[in-house]
């Protein structure tokens, strides 16, 4: 809690709070980047589930989408942290913020699980119209988590006290 109080008093936090432009600009970048990051995540999940981009080589898809995924994620994290800095105590006081952070970590764990298990044998099912059960499961977990993360993110805006 004392860390949050300290953060609240930093110049960065004050600027995010007091500037007319900082918050709208950062939030706009956050939402616009969502179109690349979330869009790519959903497309990969749908491919894993055998619903979209059927018959496209999974490895090629990762190759083509990974720069956008990683770059997009980095922008989401930086802009998200800046928004958090604007009012860390209020953010942290909402259940939605905590749930959102936990789910983002879980989504990361899901990627690690994929890479450590079914992802290792990718070459064997690279072109499969319907990937193996384990791959579909990680795709579904990711899809559900990201939908919930978007929902929690939206809920934060309603839970925060009005400026």
């Amino acid at each position, binding site marked *: 809690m004392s860390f949050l109080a300290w953060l609240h008093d930093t110049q960065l936090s004050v600027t995010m709070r007091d500037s007319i432009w900082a918050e709208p600009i950062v*939030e*706009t970048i956050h939402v*616009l980047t*969502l179109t690349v990051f*979330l*869009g790519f995540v959903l*497309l990969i999940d749908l491919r894993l589930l055998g619903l979209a981009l059927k018959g496209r080589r999974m490895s090629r898809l990762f190759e083509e*989408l990974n720069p956008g995924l990683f770059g997009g994620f980095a922008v989401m994290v930086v802009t998200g942290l800046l928004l958090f800095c604007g009012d860390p105590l209020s953010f942290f006081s909402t259940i939605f913020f905590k749930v959102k952070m936990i789910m983002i970590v879980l989504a990361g764990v899901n990627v690690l699980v994929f890479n450590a298990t079914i992802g290792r044998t990718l070459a064997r099912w690279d072109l499969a119209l319907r990937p193996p059960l384990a791959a579909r499961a990680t795709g579904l977990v990711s899809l559900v988590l990201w939908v919930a993360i*978007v929902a929690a993110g939206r809920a934060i805006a309603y839970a925060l006290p009005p400026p």
Partner: protein
Amino acid sequence: MTAVKALLLTFCHWCDASFFGHGIRDSTWLFPFVEIFHLLALGLLGGTLVLVNMSLLGVRFRGEPVSALARDVRPWMVGSIAVMLISGFLLFSTEAVKMYGNWAFQLKMTFLLLALLYTFTIHRKVSLAEEPRIGPLWRRLAALLSLLLWIGVALGGRAIGYVTTPPSAVGH
């Protein structure tokens, strides 16, 4: 022009008074619920558009026909446009008359109309065309215009919440 404006305003009043306009406005959780659909479809629409346009620009999926990729993502693109239009209309209907006088909303609708017309005509033709039929310069221009128009829609949408509508601009 005045006739069109009057018609639009009447339509906005009707939306405000409609059962869905009422229902979503009066419920605490329906508005955010619809917003989540709007955002998820935004993600998917953005993802598919960026992929097709990157491919047209020649920065992603090199050596693969753009038309195949465009065909593959088309159902998801059209589907997310449909979800965006429906959810967007529902959100609009909760404060339609207020939106009528909001310049950011007007800007967004102008961009949206242009983006939709463009996406389903020229952009569709260019992205689904067999490779040698359209030169690389035209493909790149088509991709850039698509990105510009949709970014215009998104920025207009972002601005709506920050624009306060003077009460004098609304009403009969």
